[in-house]
């Protein structure tokens, strides 16, 4: 954090790049305002001392034995969707592969 819970327009640009978003100048300034408002609200979490608390990533972390929700299945080969049914959803395809703009510059 540059200041307690405030982001600058450079932060907005950096995060947009990480998120593969291209924001217009107008979107940038609105995002700056909204993120700062939300982070201002979020900053109250710092009131709590959580140094001894184990993070909870999943609901199964707090459910007792016998009720666990995470179940591993046997690692077996099973039928999946056909290539045809998947490729028909693609914006651009040659039938076997997804086609995208050039990746490697020469």
């Amino acid at each position, binding site marked *: *954090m540059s200041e307690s819970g405030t*982001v600058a327009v450079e*932060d*907005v640009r*950096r*995060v*947009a790049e*990480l*998120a*593969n*978003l*291209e*924001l217009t100048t107008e*979107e940038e300034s*609105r*995002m700056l305002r*909204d*993120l700062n*408002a*939300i*982070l201002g*609200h*979020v*900053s*109250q*979490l*710092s009131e*709590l001392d*959580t140094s001894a*608390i*184990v*993070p*909870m*990533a*999943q*609901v*199964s*972390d*707090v*459910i007792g034995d016998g*009720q*666990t*929700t*995470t*179940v*591993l*299945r046997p690692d077996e080969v099973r039928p999946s*969707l056909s290539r045809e*049914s*998947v490729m*028909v*959803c*693609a*914006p*651009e395809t040659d039938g076997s592969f*997804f086609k*995208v*703009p*050039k*990746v490697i510059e020469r």
Partner: protein
Amino acid sequence: MTVETAETKSLSIGDIRSAIESGSRNAVAVTEGCFHQIEARDPQIHAYLSTNRDRALEQAARIDDLAAKGEALPVLAGVPVGIKDVLTIEGLPATAGSKILEGYRAPYTATAVTKLEAAGAIVLGKLNCDEFAMGSSNENSAYGPVHNPHALDRVPGGSSGGSAAAVAAGMAVATLGTDTGGSIRQPASFCGVVGILPTYGRVSRYGLIAFASSLDRIGPFTTSVRDAATVLGVIAGHDPLDATSSPLPVPDYTADLDKGVSGLKLGVPSEYFAEGLDPEVRAAIERNIEQLRAAGATIEPISLPHTRYAIPTYYLIATAEASANLARFDGVRYGFRAKDSDTLSAMYRRSRDLGFGAEVKRRIMLGTYALSAGYYDAYYKKAQQVRRLLAEDFLKAFTKVDAILTPTAPTPAFKLGEKVDDPVSMYLADIYTVTASLAGICGLSVPCGKSQEGLPIGLQILGKHFDEATTLRVAQTVETLQQ
């Protein structure tokens, strides 16, 4: 063939099945009745994003064939249902309320829908919602908002606004919605219907377009508690296609509905009756609590001390998970692709910029920020630690009480446009619902009164992990007390 119209609204699941069984109605007529109601009311309400009459009538005709042959009818035989458009059905659109999935047709069907159809339900169409289920008013749908059937200038709640409004307006007998931070319970409250948040893991998420995977749940909307219990019993259960779905057996959720509340201990957390609660909502909830006491329940004041931290915790965890889940929308495999980009990177960025709406971008940005180098510990890890404190509040409370009573939302339905420019104020609409989402416990909203303006008010009943039966039993009592 008689065509039924608004009459469908008062039909229960049991009525429909026994009428088809006895031959006094047929499933095709019930289905046509719902389509007539959709034609009459949906131009004003806008609950449906797509309907599929031919497919629905084929399903209905199959039920009528079974009945004509005198064969046993499945539990949801001939029941017209609508499905929130974040759940996939093979061959049908699944927009998730987003432009980025415009034109997409899903190659597979969500398990919850497969189970409904196997139980004889008739799928009428796909229901409007906030984009990727992100919102509390349905105003974030890329296809336009849903209007509350009780007052067309008001929101239906969100994100499952279409699912709640369709049931409230008799345009389906039951619907499926999804709830990540309140998206079933809050619209159920605003539209005056029953909506269930099942325990995390109770209903398979296979075929649900993911928003926040550790929070997302699928549940039913109906006009009565009994119907909601029936639909929950159909969609619940283990699914090998969702590793987080529970192997615990599914009880008959209708079995204990009429047992009453005598002997039950019901907790009332002081934190849910603090500043910001609308006086009319407070009065309705307090009146219902007194009626439950008179009906034999023991009412216990309790404390859930970390409640005030729930909204910030939720908005960090949900957005972090969303930023990861929504990375898959990149214009390569499905959905919208921006034209004429020279490079792959430009194509990703432009497709996402044009395809996502403002709220989705805001949440992707917040989530990416919370997960980024240097901020992970301060935001994401911190939120996961507070999530455990919030869950432990409930686990402690449930050693003393069987279920917890709170308002579902701080106010009745607000006006369209009222909160769109203020994200924090919109997020606070979820203040009473996000806690159960984070803890993974079950809950529901049941209608418990109306404001002076005639707007519905919902009572939220929260239960222990996998104890939906107790919440339904209390809800049935509340429903009976309204009559």
